[in-house]
């Protein structure tokens, strides 16, 4: 065997070129990206079967109107999650913002909406800065933020609700677009659409995903990691401010604990939408669908007559099942 033994010459280049195929998503991938919507429809169908009265236009309108603040909260926090972090402060910041809104409204009038959103955005930015400059995990920064915002809200409101007397500033939120779509939900859709489009059309989407999947690679590729992260926290904060305006306009008051219970539903909405909690993979549209699923579970189960104890058990089972459906595992290496 002194001479090399050549295998029979097959093709000239039996390499990958011969096997080049069209890139882009396969059928299976396409289906998984629609899974959040499929889960939503399935849930709606189940609720309708449980109580046929549930599927009326009035009832659906009410449900999407109800979901608006949750959609906004979840959409904002989705950006942080996509960057690989988490924002646990959204709910407390939202509560604080309702208080600020109610306090400032008499002086600032219609401008209050913008001022509150800007203030909440600024607070979000401070958290983002603390996260990137001090290198503290976002979980810890926002956990601290959560208790600090709650304390501030309690102190400035003297631990009580503040009435919103002047309802003109937020009256428009209670209108309907095209007769059926509640304005607040429309605004929520607008937020999701605008942020998604900005991401899609600019390099931001690849920045955010690169940071989420592998921050060190993103940094060594020279992407503006810190700026993008701070921006994500800022938008997350601003969304909390917008959600606060929606809640305050719905409740005619601001209160230091108003939105506190929306934290876990908002994070659940993100995960139910199929966004990877580890970062990188996901989108705001998914969180929109997730927020609708969570809202339907929150309001639908009791309204169709599921008893309280069973409601919780079903809620637990269904959100897990929903995530089992929606998460695209080909994009997430290890499920932690």
């Amino acid at each position, binding site marked *: *065997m*002194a*001479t*090399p*033994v*050549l*295998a029979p010459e*097959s*093709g*000239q*280049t*039996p*390499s*990958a*070129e011969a*096997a*080049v*195929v*069209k*890139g*882009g998503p*396969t059928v299976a991938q396409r289906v998984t990206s629609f899974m959040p919507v499929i889960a939503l429809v399935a849930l709606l169908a189940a609720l309708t079967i449980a109580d046929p009265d549930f599927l009326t236009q009035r009832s659906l309108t009410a449900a999407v109107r109800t979901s608006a603040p949750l959609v906004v909260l979840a959409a904002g926090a989705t950006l942080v999650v996509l960057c690989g972090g988490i924002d646990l402060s959204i709910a407390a910041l939202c509560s604080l913002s309702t208080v600020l809104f109610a306090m400032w409204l008499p002086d600032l009038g219609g401008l209050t909406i913008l001022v509150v959103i800007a203030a909440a955005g600024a607070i979000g930015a401070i958290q983002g800065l603390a996260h990137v400059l001090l290198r503290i995990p976002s979980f810890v920064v926002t956990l601290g933020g959560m208790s600090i915002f709650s304390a501030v809200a309690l102190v400035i409101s003297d631990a009580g609700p503040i009435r919103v007397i002047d309802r003109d500033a937020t009256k428009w939120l209670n209108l309907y677009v095209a007769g059926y779509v509640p304005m607040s939900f429309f605004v929520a859709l607008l937020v999701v659409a605008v942020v998604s489009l900005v991401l899609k*059309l*600019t*390099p931001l989407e*690849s*920045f955010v*995903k*690169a940071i989420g*999947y*592998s921050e*060190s*690679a*993103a*940094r*060594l*590729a*020279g*992407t*503006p990691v810190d700026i993008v992260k701070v921006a994500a926290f800022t938008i997350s904060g601003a969304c909390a401010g917008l959600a606060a305006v929606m809640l305050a306009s719905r409740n005619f008051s601001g209160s230091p604990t108003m939105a506190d219970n929306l934290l876990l539903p908002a994070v659940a909405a993100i995960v139910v939408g199929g966004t990877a909690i580890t970062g*990188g*993979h996901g989108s705001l549209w998914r969180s929109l669908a997730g927020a609708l699923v969570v809202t339907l579970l929150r309001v639908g189960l009791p309204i169709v007559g599921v008893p309280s104890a069973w409601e919780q058990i079903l809620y637990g089972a269904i959100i897990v099942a929903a995530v089992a459906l929606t998460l695209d595992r080909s*994009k997430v*290496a290890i499920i932690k």
Partner: protein
Amino acid sequence: MTTNLQVHPETEPSAPVNALEVRGLVKHYPGVKALDGVDLVVRQHEVLGLAGENGAGKSTLLKALVGLVRPDAGEIWVRGEKVRLRSVVEAADHGIGMVFQEQSLVPNLTAAENIVLGSEGAGVKRGIYRWDTMRKLAQEQLDKIGSHIDPLARTDSLSFAERQMVEIAKVLRIEERTSNPPVIILDEPTSVLESKEIETLFTQVRRLREFASVVFVSHRLDEVLDVCDRVAVLRGGQSVGEMPTADAVPTDLHRLMIGSTGSDDHYHEGMSERSAAAAEPRLVVKGMSGKTFRDVDLEVRAGEIVGIVGVHGSGREDVCRALFGAEPTVAGEVTLDGAKLDLSGTRAAVASGVGYVPAERKIEGMVGPMSVADNMTLTKQKSRCAGPMVVPQKQATLVDKWIERLSIRTPHRGTQIGRLSGGNQQKVVLARWLVAGDIRLLLLDHPTRGLDIGARSEVYRLMRELANSGVATVLLADSLEEAIGMSDRIIVMNDGRATKEVACPSGGKPTPLDLVKEMV
């Protein structure tokens, strides 16, 4: 585990029994035929080299041999028995073990635990650790390869080479599982080692041959010829031939691998031309100090390639990172083309035309789940944007051009980069700095790690082209030969200081020995 053995005596291959035999193995991935009917024979007590370009299917084949890849078709025979391997454990039961291309130790466990991981045997009784036994078991394995590592040291406190030893000690555990001589598979074990460490490894491999068969993969053909008894070559997922190494030379192998003879001028020295601009110094570093290096002076002229050599811990990686703003500096003055270079962060570095290719490709170089196109254009936004907007068409054209130019093997620009073979991933990472054409200083940390000889040659050619166009390059080479072959000047670093500068012009190259003297 005998239930998994399916013995077909009637088709038993003729004696002497081969340690391992592969027949017609096929494996498809979406868009890629990674294995296309591979045949391979590993004899008892031999070191078999496996060569092939990046993406030829070497790793896939080897993973199939340890049950990590389920082949679509084909047969695997172990010592005359046809087997079906469904997991690492089953493979180990048949005496096959592997050291993976990416190091695979748990960093926060002790070396001892890593060595016995998955087959603790007497080290764990009813779920309870018996540290003494565990240590003894690990020590036995370490003794086999004559290593003096403390078995109870945490793995992430060990050096790279020590970790490699732990990996080998670990893979030798399979001896305890079978009475037969084991088959040890080493997938590119040398790509992360320094030359001294490689020598140690080769000593081990030769020792292993006494009682085992070894399959050895490397892109450094001289190594393959050095340590192996026989080489088999894969191309495009097929076996294209094999030869004994006794009197083979790298070009023979090379010819088999790519189907034609490569040029002898491996490092494209002929291409090197000193442009007029070459005279002016581009990068000037004066007295730069950081955590792991002190008072480093460095000058790189436009169009020059300067290699930095040194052993692990010499601080050369950190110098590179510091120049890219990825590692803090405490003192020093750095100018690029006369202007002060901002070392405050990677953004600033990129903005001033500095590029960096990190050694840790998987972690720092690329974003695995993102597409080839996105990875390639992550840095240079202008190349794919109009104003603030991404223009998909522009990006597609550009990316396709570079895929073509660097012959990157990918089904599509939209394929996740993580699905490419290591070499092709590296090409994408390199391409990232080239797409905009505005690079002034390129810092290359092991740019050819894991690349096949063809791809290497490609990268070298690219480096030459860039140099000719005036780019200043700092190269931390994969091997001394590479440093010598590519560099115009070589800086030797030792213990955080630049201790020596060696001129390295074409025609007047120093020998590796000259450098090693300075390094230690």
